[in-house]
């Protein structure tokens, strides 16, 4: 068996080549992942902060409920709930395109995991930092804005990088609700061309390039944000990777 890469230059019957289709599919993958990331990070940060608020048990419980809800249901099941079940209960949701439903589902699923990272980051700070801020007369939002979050964010950047890469790879579930992203392209194009090995290799390489780009980008951010003298994953005190 020899590899026939020219399959990507053949017409798919609709007036475009498989290569063009592959690139469009890559665009959908990146689009879903990026949009979901924009949902996941703010939601995750908000819920994570809520879970660490002191003297606000209701908000804290609410945050916990959020995390458990979205963390304990398998992603594919969540996607189907958003796609088939909720529109049955709320007919207005039938107008939503499957793209936005997937973005919401993937974004909220990931937000639960990011919330836990924010909580862990904030709770890993010495208690003295919170008390020092309170002693200086900071309001709660100022305490988080100027003391806790800047330090916590730097600590959680490595796991946040992993989670962002996970998000990209998880976007492959979007094929299940009719988004023509890379995984769907692979399944469909290999059936049409009978050249599965070439198709899957190309798709694998694109996934790897995308995930590695995210990795490099966020590692660069990590280095740029590093405070001299503070321990970090890049510093001399810690040599473990992520």
């Amino acid at each position: 068996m020899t590899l026939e890469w020219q399959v990507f230059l053949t017409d798919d019957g609709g007036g475009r080549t498989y290569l063009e289709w592959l690139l469009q599919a890559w665009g959908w993958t990146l689009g879903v992942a990026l949009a979901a990331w924009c949902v996941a990070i703010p939601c995750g940060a908000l819920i994570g902060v809520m879970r660490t608020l002191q003297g606000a048990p209701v908000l804290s419980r609410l945050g916990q409920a959020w995390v458990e809800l979205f963390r304990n249901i398998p992603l594919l099941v969540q996607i189907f709930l958003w796609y088939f079940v909720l529109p049955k209960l709320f007919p207005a949701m039938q107008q939503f395109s499957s793209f936005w439903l997937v973005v919401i589902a993937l974004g909220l699923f990931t937000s639960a995991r990011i919330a836990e990272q924010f909580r862990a980051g904030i709770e890993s700070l010495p208690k003295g930092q919170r008390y020092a801020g309170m002693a200086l007369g900071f309001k709660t939002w100022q305490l988080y804005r100027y003391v806790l979050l800047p330090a916590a964010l730097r600590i959680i950047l490595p796991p946040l990088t992993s989670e962002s890469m996970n998000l990209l790879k998880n976007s492959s579930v979007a094929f299940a609700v009719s988004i023509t992203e890379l995984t769907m392209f692979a399944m469909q194009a290999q059936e049409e061309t009978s050249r599965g090995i070439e198709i899957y290799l190309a798709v694998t390489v694109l996934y790897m390039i995308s995930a590695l780009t995210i990795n490099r980008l966020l590692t660069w951010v990590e280095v740029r944000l590093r405070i001299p003298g503070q321990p970090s994953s890049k510093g001399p005190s810690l040599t473990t990777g992520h």
Partner: protein
Amino acid sequence: MRIFQKTPFTVCAAVLAWGMSMGAGTAFAQSNDTLGKVKASGEITMGVRDSSGALSYTLGDGKYVGFHIDVCQKIIANVEKAAGKKLETKYVSVTSQNRIPLVQNGTVDIECGSTTNNTARQKDVSFALTTYVEEVRIAVKANSGITSINQLNGKNVATTTGTTSVQILRKHERAAGVDFKEVFGKDHAESFLLLESGRADAFVMDGQILAGNIALSKNPADYKIVGEVLSVEPIAIMIRKDDAAFKKVADDTIREMAKSGDLAKSYDKWFVQPIPPKNTRVGLPASETTRATWANLNDKPMEDYAKK
């Protein structure tokens, strides 16, 4: 971490991809003497499908049944005669993604599923005589008033990812200058759910799959198969390429079955009579094209059917 900073990951990725392609190139070399192979090992491996309608499906518990499995069992009985010994039949469940590589690399000796015989695949594998001709049709809700594909302009049309129907729709769109809003189910059950839940106005798929899904639905009277035949595809049993001796045994068996009427009888058993596990009927008597193929057996690819 430090080590990797100096060695770009991309180099590793490229090396890995290259290694995989090299591996694929050599691993697929396989001798083309199936008869000799099964005689030496005493076993033959049948590739089967979990749910390819009444052609090949599972009852659970490692049991596989269907029209094509009946035909394959006849072929294996004749292989046993040719080999002069009893063979143990092993079953391997295949998917549309892996069936061709598995036949090529020798994991599967004879694939008894629902594989379309076309010229692209003939470069990699070989097919026995066509035993079933599939017609791609349209299923709609009975009260929708849709009777033809031309009424689907601007409507949501469901089909299943990884099937040729997706490409048929795409070609039809370009040829007729219409615009479908395609929605893709990840399997046939989900595509049918798209039609059932109103997300799609029509479901375009192989006729027997539509008939099977309608038969299993809550209220079969709510759905109808309508309109013109969108594509005709010869479905055949798949074997390794360039294995004339094995192909002859398979083809002779099918000729024998067609002549004696066993082929039609077996078809009737799976597509017309109630079938396990729920004793439902697919309710799809043999089409004119299928019967014409039985009368005039051939292993022509799909492209030859399109010309007619």
